[in-house]
């Protein structure tokens, strides 16, 4: 497997992290299927818009750009496919690189940074306690005037909440103060992208293997 040529690696240390966005695998070729026939069957996969490929003997080098959404190899940006022979017969080995997987892996870092920025900007926005107290008082006075329309009263809609007292508001931390500067959403998206990467890392290699298996078996 070591001798199997893959996409060029500029920094050797990056090899340690290849599992994040590199997809490797092999699919046994049906008996009596010659390499020429195997590549002929795989050819339609490289006919999608934005795909270029070159064959050198038993090796195919693929690159993709602006892949269409419905391209079955849309997550692949570059890679190699090679037919090897061993005592069990011929095998198609592939080594594909997906920037989509890499960016998905890095996306949580971006959202964590956004969360930190939100917290920082929120701390700058904190109004002075006196100013806040005055603001709250004004709001409470205003809320006290709100009455439900008679139509809504008749239909049974709940009356608007009475303004809470100062103490309760302070205990809650002042909702208004935090409004617009909560980092929760950014944290949620960081979590979503961790889950998405795990899903993609499991699902996409499985789909690609199944695609090659079905294509070669046709």
């Amino acid at each position, binding site marked *: 497997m070591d001798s199997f040529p893959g996409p060029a690696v500029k920094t050797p240390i990056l090899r340690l992290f290849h599992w994040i966005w590199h997809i490797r695998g092999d699919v046994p070729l049906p008996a009596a299927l010659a390499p020429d026939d195997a590549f002929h069957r795989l050819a339609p996969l490289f006919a999608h818009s934005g795909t270029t490929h070159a064959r050198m003997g038993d090796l195919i080098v693929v690159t993709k750009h602006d892949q269409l*959404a419905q391209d079955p190899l849309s997550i692949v940006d570059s890679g190699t496919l090679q037919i090897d022979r061993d005592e069990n017969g011929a095998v198609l080995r592939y080594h594909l690189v997906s920037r989509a997987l890499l960016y998905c892996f890095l996306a949580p870092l971006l959202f964590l940074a956004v969360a930190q920025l939100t917290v920082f900007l929120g701390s700058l926005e904190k109004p002075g306690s006196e100013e806040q107290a005055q603001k709250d008082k004004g709001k409470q006075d205003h809320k006290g005037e709100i009455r439900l329309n008679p*139509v809504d009263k008749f239909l049974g809609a709940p009356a608007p909440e009475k303004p809470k007292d100062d103490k309760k508001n302070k205990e809650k931390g002042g909702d208004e103060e935090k409004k617009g500067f909560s980092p929760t959403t950014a944290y949620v998206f960081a979590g979503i992208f961790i889950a998405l990467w795990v899903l993609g890392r499991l699902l996409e290699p499985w789909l690609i293997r199944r695609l090659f298996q079905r294509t070669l078996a046709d």
Partner: protein
Amino acid sequence: MDGIRVGKRIVGTQSPVTIGWENIPKVEGGAFKRLFFTWFQPVVLFGMIAFWYYAPNSIAKASTAIGIGIGFRVVLQILEFVNPRHKSWQITWKELATDLFYVGIASTCVRLVDNYIGSDAIIEAVQKSLDVEKLAWFTSLPLLIQAFLIIFIFDFCQYWMHRGMHNWYPLWLPHSVHHYITQLNVHKGAVGNPLELFLIGLGIGGLFDFLPRAFLLAGAIGMSVGAYQHINVRFNSPRWWRFIFNTTEHHSLHHSQDFESTRSNYCNTFILIDRFFGTCIDGEAELLGMEGGRRMSIREQMLYPFTEGLRAWKERKSREPFFADHTAVPAE
């Protein structure tokens, strides 16, 4: 392609479109499936209205609305697998991850910017500097009227902003990238340049004061209608629904590869606004996007309005003035 005459315009000359409700395919399958996809939209809408109208104050909160919103999106995502409108719009892992990235940016970065220069922030600043109170008498109106006003005022502003984006180049630049989407899926509404998402969110709703419950009702109605703009699900929307509200069919036509079709159906919620201003076309399209359906990367989506704007500005600057010193060419 010959195209189809719709009023004064001819649509479908560059890419196939289907015009007229009688030509649009219906939901196929068993009686339950057809019943479900006929009544799902109205039942959700009226269910949401009833819930938010009667929910006790302890439940009627923004956090409940967020939870329902997320749950609804998950349900719609499942429906995309159950009854897809087009196989060519099927969601993939990469599409889902890309779409959610834009949703994430819209829900975090764009919201953060809105705190400073969003329409509500601007209106609040103006009201403070002029010492003007919000128009508070709206709070005494019946809740459903308040909710309708909130949606309608926003939709009306959005209609003109959207129409402006299709008719004025500086506004078209940030919006153009949204038209590079090649399929409609649940989260595709957020795909685009953050600058566009900021612009489309501008409105004058901040001028008025409404009850918090009216905002929740408006949000629920907006969600129960607007969520179907970008979605890969085939519904048999009732006749009255597609007369009043924007549908996937309308919006797919707006995203068509046919230029003339894109200049229609601008509204977000009420297609009635388009009908009123003569920009509504009832129909649908499957082939979507720009430049023959080229898919734009996230990087290009983020940079395109600026790089393209700079290119256009340089080109304009280098253009010869109209009355430049030309050698006179006599008329025939």
